[in-house]
């Protein structure tokens, strides 16, 4: 009855560890949040399933020749999947609102303070001996404050692949939590009167401006900060395909079949880093706490910058739209709209907030390029 023994020895019950059981429970929690609460479902369902598969004992799925390990090696270690997602996001993004009111780019800059403050926080708690993050790891954790999933995954894959699972989970979870995290901060930093400010309607942006913008942005990147060129290059490529009007069939596939396929693969690949022995560490806890701070600080600096701009600018700026500068497209802009409507039921800020929102994507890609150049090398 040797075969029976082999059967029992091969069963999950005989092999499962407490850590794996805990990770399976966490994966189920991610599904619950994704399905019942609609928390970033495209990523949390796929990452969650990857996590579930990665913690099945005694079978090579997230290791060795397993499919999830192959996906990770091919698509995430090389950076290919986040870059392709960025291309797809570019093909979905309308830069009209920010081109109509270019000064809102500055709000996308201010909100990146969350990134660097968190980096400093991670470094500080390490120097206090509470945790032990290297400079590379601190930089990768900071990027959570960029509120941009593929950017976070790209940077973590380059600087701290061992933290990739926790960083991706934190980034997407907090992006989903934007409607809960941001409003109290926005209300605390603004007066009722400021929140009620109505903004002048945006002008129509011509197609030519929209075509030239991605090229202009890429040239600026090429001349000033080439290390941001992979991320912003693919983003601009997607956007150019969208706007140029002569390759619509490519743009369509990019923002549909291609981004969907890559999203599934990215989720499974990230999930392969949810193996118990990698994920269940004190560092993960630290990342979750720091990620929360990153979001809060980013939101606050965006709002404060918008207040400052409102004082300096001739046309009125509602400080709420600064909160959208963290990116978390399009959730943050919708939250701005909602909080604005509470203060003034005629105040539709959605389009005004879309400007800082997409500016925030550029801002955190710039910060990511900086990190990779200054820390990674």
């Amino acid at each position, binding site marked *: 009855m040797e075969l029976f023994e082999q059967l029992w020895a091969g069963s999950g019950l005989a092999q499962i560890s407490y850590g794996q059981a805990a990770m399976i429970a966490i994966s189920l929690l991610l599904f619950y949040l994704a399905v019942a609460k609609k928390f970033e479902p495209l990523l949390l369902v796929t990452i969650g399933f990857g996590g579930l598969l990665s913690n099945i004992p005694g079978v090579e799925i997230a290791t060795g020749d397993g499919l999830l390990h192959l996906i990770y090696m091919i698509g995430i270690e090389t950076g290919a999947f986040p870059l392709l997602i960025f291309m797809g996001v570019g093909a979905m993004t309308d830069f009209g609102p920010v081109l109509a009111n270019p000064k809102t780019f500055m709000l996308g800059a201010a909100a990146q303070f969350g990134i660097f403050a968190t980096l400093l926080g991670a470094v500080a708690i390490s120097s206090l001996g509470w945790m032990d993050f290297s400079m590379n790891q601190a930089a990768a954790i900071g990027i959570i404050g960029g509120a941009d999933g593929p950017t976070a995954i790209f940077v973590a894959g380059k600087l701290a692949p061992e933290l990739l699972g926790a960083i991706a989970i934190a980034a997407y979870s907090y992006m989903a939590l934007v409607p809960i995290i941001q409003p109290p901060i926005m209300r605390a930093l603004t007066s009722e009167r400021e929140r009620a400010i109505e903004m002048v309607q945006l002008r129509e942006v011509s197609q030519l401006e929209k075509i030239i913008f991605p090229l202009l942005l890429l040239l600026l990147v090429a001349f000033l900060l080439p290390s941001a060129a992979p991320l912003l290059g693919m983003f601009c490529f997607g956007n150019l395909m969208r706007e140029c009007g002569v390759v619509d069939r490519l743009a369509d596939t990019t923002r549909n079949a291609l981004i969907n396929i890559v999203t599934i693969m990215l989720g499974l690949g990230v999930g392969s880093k949810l193996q118990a022995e990698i994920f269940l560490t004190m560092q993960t806890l630290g990342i979750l706490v720091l990620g929360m701070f990153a979001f809060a600080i980013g939101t606050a600096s965006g709002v404060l910058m918008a207040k400052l701009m409102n004082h300096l600018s001739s046309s009125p700026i509602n400080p709420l739209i600064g909160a959208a500068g963290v990116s978390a497209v399009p959730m943050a802009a919708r939250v701005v709209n909602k909080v604005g409507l509470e203060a003034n039921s005629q105040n539709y800020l959605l389009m005004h907030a879309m400007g800082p929102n997409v500016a925030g994507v550029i801002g955190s890609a*710039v910060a990511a390029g900086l990190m990779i150049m200054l820390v990674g090398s």
Partner: protein
Amino acid sequence: MTSVAHPMVMEGVQLMLIGMGTVFVFLTLLVVAVRTMSALILMYFPPVPIQTNKAVVTAEGVPRAHVAAVAAAIEKHRGSQAP
């Protein structure tokens, strides 16, 4: 507190200053560049006044929108042969 003088913290502060500085400089330049671009485009390619939409109909009495849709469909079909 000696920990503030910790070399990694010093490096973190430096990174923060340089990082935020670069982000701001970059996006400021982007604002300038975008404004210049828009100004040049508005100067050389002023927007065409929007046409009033009174059900434009072609000579043959077919609504122009239909013609355009059909033309687009044909073009799309042809375009799909290209690569």
